[in-house]
């Protein structure tokens, strides 16, 4: 299959206009020895029919083709309203370039502005950018921002942070500049953080809800960071933020009566807003912070303005932070963001709205807790951690979690994430997520898998 429309006669005409006789004459700068003289040993060409057959075969090799999923760990299968796909598939959004010519990109720019607005609202922050690659790289960028803002090197990281996020941090930073504060009972204990915090700390990174699904205590963590002169970076789940006190908001009514600082930066993974799991990508990192940090913000940023005739319009702004202008002095090397994923999130948030998103979050809480109650009543199973959780919890199994996963596969159930794949000492732990999509009947089938898989 070819996507070129060019007749031999046209080709001849164009070669003449290009002032050569043969195509090869155009390649005079290429050393002759490196020109390929044989076809590449790759597959194809395939027609659409053959492509569908090939990819259809691969799709069927995945359990996702038909199984009921209780998988989470940062990627969630929430319902995606039909209108999200219908709008995001539009050529006008999908096949447009980055909006560098704003006069012919108001669709994209307005949507980015709305995305920024909704993320700022959810996180309680002053501003948000146009998106990052994923939650992990958004976290890295937040740490880099904190380092350049404070002039300090060290990142204090909660042990309850997603292990993959920590892994990406270790790749980008010198691992010696990272201090992990071990979790206790699955959560970051503020007193542990206080003890570990030194004068070299640029930031404190915590996840809320954390990797185990547990809710952290943002207020004392943020206060400790503030008192140590470090920025606090909250890694959040945007669906949970429909219910939770937004971490970016400063408040006056802290538990001990004093004013309480919000998180300076709130980042996270936005895949759960209208994007399919897609085997872990493309995802949607989001990045929100205080207005005072805006000039250190990585990535693209849309702003409102007016055109020559005084009509409202939107443009990319503060581009002097970015690599295509500032080169080695840029705040980040990021260029491409996740535009289409951000659009999907914007449409999703528009459709669900203030009531719908809350309902999704509440359904998750109800169903997750229902599942946890069922599981805890099955002999041999127990919740691994005490404390409040949102739409995910760790179940300690009487056998290796891998065996429960295996029992599920034969029943078309993906019962949870085998945490043994992260750490051997977690091999009995199953991380279970229950979204609003799971029905009571599916949860019952899941419990049946636990009963079957848990028998030794």
């Amino acid at each position, binding site marked *: *299959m070819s*996507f070129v429309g*060019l007749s031999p006669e046209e080709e001849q*005409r*164009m070669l003449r206009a290009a002032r050569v006789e043969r195509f090869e004459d155009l*390649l005079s*700068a*290429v*050393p002759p020895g490196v020109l390929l003289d044989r076809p*590449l040993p790759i597959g*194809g060409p*395939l027609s659409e029919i053959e492509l*569908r057959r090939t*990819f259809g075969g691969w*799709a069927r*090799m*995945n359990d996702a*083709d038909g199984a009921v999923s209780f998988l989470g760990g940062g*990627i969630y299968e929430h*319902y995606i309203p039909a*209108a999200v796909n219908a*709008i995001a598939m539009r050529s*006008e959004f999908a096949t*447009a370039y*980055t*909006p560098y010519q704003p006069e012919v990109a*108001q669709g*994209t720019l307005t949507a980015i*502005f709305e995305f920024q607005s909704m993320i700022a609202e959810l996180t309680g922050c*002053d501003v*948000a950018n146009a998106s990052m*690659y994923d939650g992990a*790289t958004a976290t890295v960028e937040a740490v880099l921002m904190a380092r350049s803002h404070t002039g300090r090197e060290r990142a204090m990281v909660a042990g309850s942070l997603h292990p*993959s996020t920590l892994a990406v941090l270790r790749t980008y930073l010198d691992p010696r500049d990272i201090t992990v504060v071990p979790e206790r009972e699955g959560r970051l204990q503020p007193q542990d953080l206080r003890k570990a915090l030194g004068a070299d700390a640029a930031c404190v990174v915590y996840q809320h809800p954390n990797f185990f699904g547990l809710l952290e205590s943002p207020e004392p963590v943020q206060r400790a960071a503030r008192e140590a002169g470090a920025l606090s970076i909250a890694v959040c789940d945007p669906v949970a933020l429909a*219910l*939770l006190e937004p971490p970016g908001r400063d408040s006056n009514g802290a538990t001990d009566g004093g004013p309480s600082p919000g998180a300076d930066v709130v980042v996270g993974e936005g895949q759960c807003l209208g994007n*399919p799991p897609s085997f872990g*990508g*493309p*995802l949607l990192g989001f990045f929100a912070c205080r207005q005072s940090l805006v000039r250190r913000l990585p990535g693209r940023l849309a702003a*409102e*303005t007016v055109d*020559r005739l005084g*009509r409202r*319009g*939107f443009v990319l*702004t*503060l581009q002097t932070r970015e*690599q295509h202008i500032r080169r*080695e002095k840029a705040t980040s*090397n990021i*260029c*491409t963001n*996740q535009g289409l994923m951000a659009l999907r999130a914007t449409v999703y*948030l528009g459709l669900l709205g*203030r009531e719908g998103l809350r309902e999704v979050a509440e359904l998750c*809480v109800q169903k997750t807790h229902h599942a946890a109650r069922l599981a805890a009543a099955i002999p041999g199973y127990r919740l691994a951690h005490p404390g*409040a959780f949102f739409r995910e919890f760790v179940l300690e199994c009487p056998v290796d979690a891998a065996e429960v996963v295996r029992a599920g596969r034969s029943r078309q159930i*993906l019962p949870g*994430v085998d945490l043994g794949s992260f750490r051997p000492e977690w091999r009995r732990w199953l991380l279970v997520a229950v979204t609003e999509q799971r029905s009571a009947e599916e949860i019952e089938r899941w419990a049946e898998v636990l009963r079957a898989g848990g028998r030794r």
Partner: protein
Amino acid sequence: MKFPNRLLLEQGGPGHRGPELPRCDVPVRPLGELLPGVPLRDRLDLPRVSEPEVVRHFIELSTLNHHVDRGFYPLGSCTMKHNPKIDDELASFPGLALAHPLAGDEASQGSLRVIFELERTLAEITGFSAVTTQPAAGAQGELTGLLLIRAYHRSKGEADRRRRVIVPDSAHGTNPASVRLAGYETVTIPSEEHATVSLEALEQALDDRTAAIMLTVPNTLGLFEPRILEVTKRVHEAGGLAYMDGANLNALVGLVRPGDLGFDVMHINTHKTFSTPHGGGGPGAGPVAVTRELEPFLPVPVLEERDGSLRFSYDRPRSIGRVHSHYGNFGILARALAYILANGPEGLRRVSRTAILNANYLMRRLSESYELPYPEHCMHEFVLSGRGLKKYGVKTLDVAKRLLDFGVHAPTVYFPLIVEEALMIEPTETETLDRLDHFATAMEKIAAEAREHPELLREAPLTTPVARLDEARAARELKLRWGVGDKAPIPEPRETPIRA
């Protein structure tokens, strides 16, 4: 009169809402009981709109965009080619789109097969030994490549000394930005008179502190480096490695393998060469290809085949670690594989051949109305200069804005930095001759307008949904989000303008 464009928050109100959710079918407990002691929010000021309002809103917005399915996009270095529709369909198959990255290898053999096939295919196309699909975009691919280079020098005990990366002055801005992020220092070398690498400048910059050179081939002027084999040889002799920025791979695919040019590592922009949709600014994907020497350092996990089944291996003690939460932008990678398989070996060759032919045809035609600073044959793109129009008080920016009135997107302007008033034009292979001619005619007409009606250009665009926007005001006022209670501006009644 057109209905005014309003933001979502400026529409709807109480009682307007989108799709319903199912009633809770498990026993409901009070939230306070399930989340004891957890501070909950008192308000959430998201929009309140119905599905028809949402759909109208975004469809109205969509009509304000230029996009490649509607018209020509001669953006140099961006490779805005046709995106085959079948690729989107394949990536949306539920078995692929709903696949969860933590389902485990056994449950994910289909996804793993897609990644494995793409890695193998990209290795063949680029002439390298192995590929990682983790980087989410070209810039992240650059960083990954530099971290691999750093790990290589570390393994030789030379990491502390080799801290410099040579970058020509014609390079993309991401190159020096990535260099800094990797903890390296950029050494910029000037291009010689033909805008390619000056061996003299290279020789002066190379020493035992050199970690690597980063080169774009063809370079950002669309010119192939004629002495590329000599360049990579000298870098290797100095103990450095050669990184290729694959942004312009569309000129080489099926024709030249970068691995044969002496490079050690490169990134590939799937959203350029392999035609995955740009999405209004992403998602892209930036797989990185390496030689056998750099393979041990690739990000974990690494895909391995054993007895016909695939699994991820984390057993790579010398790996640089992860650069993505999972395995990269899978949905984009699947589209890229579909594109490659649809084309096959001959089709890919036709891609680069036609891209080069289209660019040379346009370049010769436009050289009659604009200055062509480098008259050599180009590869897939070329750069014109608009400096000849300055005497009429017209800038390259004005030419770019006026093009929008012809239903054509502007070229890349003011880049590369080494050409004054640059217009960087990349037609790609999917534009047909009649479209190229339409663009050339528009450019010629604009050159004539510059002489006869320069004020027209300075006011352009005249027919777009909005006129030129006040960017200084945007940066000064920094209104980056809506405010609660904001009202839509009252639009003045206006007729739909007549198209040029």
